[in-house]
């Protein structure tokens, strides 16, 4: 009796069985990579804004403190986006005619808010609190990157849970002295071990244990 299948079928079936595993692996790999890629997270994507506001100019070149505009960063969960009034504190006197600033003046005139595009947008089930981070020695730069070098704002970090947990599990790697929280480009003193130095600060500031910082309800409610 003749064989139903040709001999080559063996090879094909072997290849497809093993191939399927690889294909599945590949699919998973693509999926996870895509998940963490800037395509999904919008990391490093400079966002369009109603006004071409430059942090590089205001925070970097002029050196305005972060808290001049983000007033509630030390007090509440939300760092605070400045009301139009804050812009007008200076721009009622300088750059009066600048066409770039017309939306600001219009907002002030008409009492209609400016609508900024959110750059750092955590999912709604995450309850991030700026104040506790800033008060426990986590610098702005740690999450937001070198804002003083960003002409238009972009998201410097991935802002996914795995990224959060890197620090929640090992805060000693990221913590800095409280006085340096608002400093851009801060580096630990030369010659000291980063983790040892960080550990000292972790103890000093009374950070919670890893078990607490890892608990779901620390950030989710």
């Amino acid at each position: 009796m003749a064989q139903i299948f040709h001999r080559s079928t063996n090879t094909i079936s072997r290849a497809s069985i093993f191939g399927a595993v690889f294909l599945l692996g590949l699919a998973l790999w693509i999926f996870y990579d895509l998940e963490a890629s800037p395509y999904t997270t919008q990391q490093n994507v400079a966002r369009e804004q109603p006004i071409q506001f430059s942090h590089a100019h205001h925070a970097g070149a002029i050196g305005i403190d972060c808290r001049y505009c983000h007033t509630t960063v030390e007090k509440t969960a939300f760092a605070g986006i400045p009301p139009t009034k804050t812009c007008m504190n200076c721009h009622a006197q300088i750059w009066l005619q600048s066409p770039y600033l017309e939306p600001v003046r219009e907002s002030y005139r008409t009492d209609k808010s400016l609508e900024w595009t959110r750059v750092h947008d955590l999912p709604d089930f995450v309850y991030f609190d700026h104040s506790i981070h800033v008060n426990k020695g986590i610098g702005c730069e740690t999450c937001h990157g070198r804002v003083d070098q960003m002409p238009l704002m972009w998201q410097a970090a991935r802002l996914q849970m795995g990224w959060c947990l890197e620090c929640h599990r090992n805060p000693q790697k990221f913590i800095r002295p409280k006085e340096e929280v608002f400093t851009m480009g801060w580096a630990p003193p030369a010659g000291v071990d980063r983790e040892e130095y960080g550990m000292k600060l972790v103890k000093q500031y009374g950070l919670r244990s890893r078990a607490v910082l890892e608990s779901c309800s620390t950030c989710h409610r």
Partner: protein
Amino acid sequence: MKSLPVYPQPQRPRFWRSLEELEGIERREETSQEALAWAKGMDRRELFKFGGVSLALAGLTACTRQPTEKIIPYVRQPEEIKPGTPLFFATAMPLSGYATGLLVESHMGRPTKVEGNPLHPASLGATDLFSQASIYGLYDPDRSQSLTYLGEIRAWPAFLSAMRLAVEKAREKKGAGLRILTETVGSPTLGAQLRALLMELPEAKWHQWEPANRDNAWAGAAMAFGQPLDPVLDVSKADVILSLDADFFSCGPGHLKSVADFAARRRTRNRTAMNRLYCVEAAPGVTGASADHRLPMRASQVEAFARTVAALVGGGGGGASSASPFAQAVAEDLKAHRGKSLVVAGDYQPPAVHAIAHALNDALGNTGQTVSWIEPIPVKPESHADSFRRLVADMESGAVETLVIVGGNPAFTAPGDLGFAKALDKVKVSAHLSLHQDETSTLCRWHVPEAHYLESWSDARAFDGTASILQPLIAPLYGGKTAHEVIAALTSQPERTSYEIVRDYWKDRMGGDFEGAWRRALHDGVIEGSASARKTVRAGSTTGREGQAPPLRHEAGGRTDLEIQFRADPTVYDGRFANNGWLQELPKAVTKLTWDNAVLLAPATAKKLNVASEDVLRLTWDGRSVEAPAWIVPGHAEDSATLHFGYGRTHAGTLGSKTGFSASALQSSKALAGGSGLEIAKAGRTYALVTTQHHQNMEGRAIVRAATLEEFEKTPEFAHEMEEAPGPEESMYAHYPPHEYAWAMAIDLNACTGCGACTLACQAENNIPTVGKKEVSRGHAMHWIRVDRYFEGSEANPATYHQPVPCMHCENAPCELVCPVGATVHSAEGLNDMVYNRCVGTRYCANNCPYKVRHFNYFHYGTQFRPPSMRMLANPEVTVRWRGVMEKCTYCVQRITVAKIGAEKENRRVRDGEIVTACQQACPAKAIVFGDLADASSEVSNARKSPANYGLLEDLGTRPRTTYLAAVRNPNPSLEKTGVWDVERKTS
């Protein structure tokens, strides 16, 4: 090895939840029927199809990009606002003329949650059901949104000119033909406005009507003291309390304070001498359920009982010799506590009972001690029934040309004998101010949308006279107007805003630095020193007073002994909250019915009439009839039927219309509380009522634990003897490691009155959806903290216990072990965390939870089903859960987190009492304590050290963090032994 515990099912259990359970009849729950339906309709092939599709679709949900969001900052940021941190504003909620002081949470101008104002005497930091749920009413999408004339939209100035025209016409006749109908007016400003208007137009008349009124109380006070007065109760000083059909824990002036004072003397930890409460009533209420001795008694028998007690206390007099043992025991107890006892008469009892109660208090030396008297809080203490009857008569005779109805819904609430709706036809100009286009609005020519009290400037007074300014939390959502503005429309200054009116009124009265005093009043929520002066009065003797005032209880001359009594509904009140989903879905304290009212009958009466629960009955009384379903209530008085009015609305809105039946159609203006001569016939069909009491049976376990004070003193550990808990070494699992904080809750069953405020507070705080009647019938109600109700003893007169059940946050949580995706896990501080985003909805956890505290979102209740205005209600601090997600009590983790962050910023531990959960905050009895077990001196640690402390189903080894303090009742030794309850029932 120890064998597993076996639960013997006793013949007749000591504690029981439903009559079926008492009789040993197994009642299949709707849920299991649903499960059966599924099992029938699904074969293997279909199961695989579903499985395959679920698997294929599961992956699609993960890879999503965050939608672009906007940040919209202020142009000029108000000084006090810190985005993300709520502000609290003091205001007050007026209900039937009396105010409850509140602090309302506002997130950047959006009110989200009502809380009690600790500075306010009627709140003391707690809230009742109505104030807690009132915020739902603010965002109710069915609220009236436009001013209409004959159904067509008009502008406010058009209304003003119509009113000017009508008033000018009336002015020619000194106001004759102009009538104003209000509810009980408690606002001093509105009272002054109305008085000024009547001064200007002396022939105009102001009528008041609401069905849950204080007619009897004021008439009774007038009988006793010669003038209507309001009582100020001080339950904290009373050792012995007798309630004559008075549900003074659930409604009435100062009820929250009464509960607080009562509960403070019921605690088994930090013991004070325990008080004793006697209660005689027909339908079991919140007060009766807390009583040490409750005697079911038809409403009409209360007067005779009161006279007997009065005679016994007074020494001699009629009826004393034939007095029942119960009356004798009560009288003896009252006499033994002169000056430290209290007799309270219920609002639905005739004036004579009130007068007897006042005389009793006088004779016992209680006046000035446990009860004192002040001028009535409402501006015009008159008989609503009389006032309303006069109005309807005048309307019928054509004497009323212009009728301005300010609030209320008289077309619905009017007793059936009056024919108010028909009489309204004869009025040429009629206007109605109300929150909804309701039954009355549709009959009136003009309808003005009313501003919710959270949108209004006004004022109101508490039960003791303390005045509060009501300040708006938000501008009127739909351009609503206040009563002040509508009354102003009838004057020469029609354009005045309520802010100006209220401020002007107080300008003369606050004195000195007005601006400072005004700001202080707004901040505190009370006007300092505004409480009424106590009056020194003496009640006249009660003997010989029979027949002096005509009894309001009217005998309809029927051929039966059956009696009917009307009461305001426990949750929707007189119908004004009918469209409030939170209140509709809240199980009523004793019956545990939701979304409906029913004819409440005693088991014996039902047997006599051959009626079962859910049988539709045809009730005929006073020549009118309604059809309504029956519900058998253990402990109800025999030969009596209780009907709650407030249901049966036709124009309430999406939720409230077509729920229940209208009892007001049966009511008589001559006897608002009801009377004898009720005829009951079976209509031959049934109507499905929904109750939460059948869900989850006890299976013979010691779930609720109770003892008498005597037993407790003999064996303080009685709660543990009822069921043994295994030690930690008996568990297979490792003992939960201690951390810096160990959150725990203790609930005092002795203090809990079962009112349900905790359930509503939790619902408001945690964005818990309502699911509707059908879903509740399937056991899908979502309340994170439910209040279970248990009976003990005979069905004729059981003792009642309430047990609030939130998540137990077990240290060995059974739910966590079965979750395939790690969506429920333990936090380091002992919280049983629920991670909504991981949950795939297997519901294994709910099946494995012995306490049944996990709830599943079967539909888009909280999200897509929610109308846009209701989305404003959501608390931004708590995730709004999606369909297909399990959820449960989190111990208000959002409040824990805020307190922890605050403490950590100051480098200190969270202080005891700093975290107050929503349920704890609302509880008037302070039955719930929450705190840190790691702090040995915390209140919750102390509570757990009490010998009465026990864990629910602790024998399962779950090591619950929520524990209970067993109930301890304080019965009169001379009554308990003789078993007079049954004797009394037969002789009376």
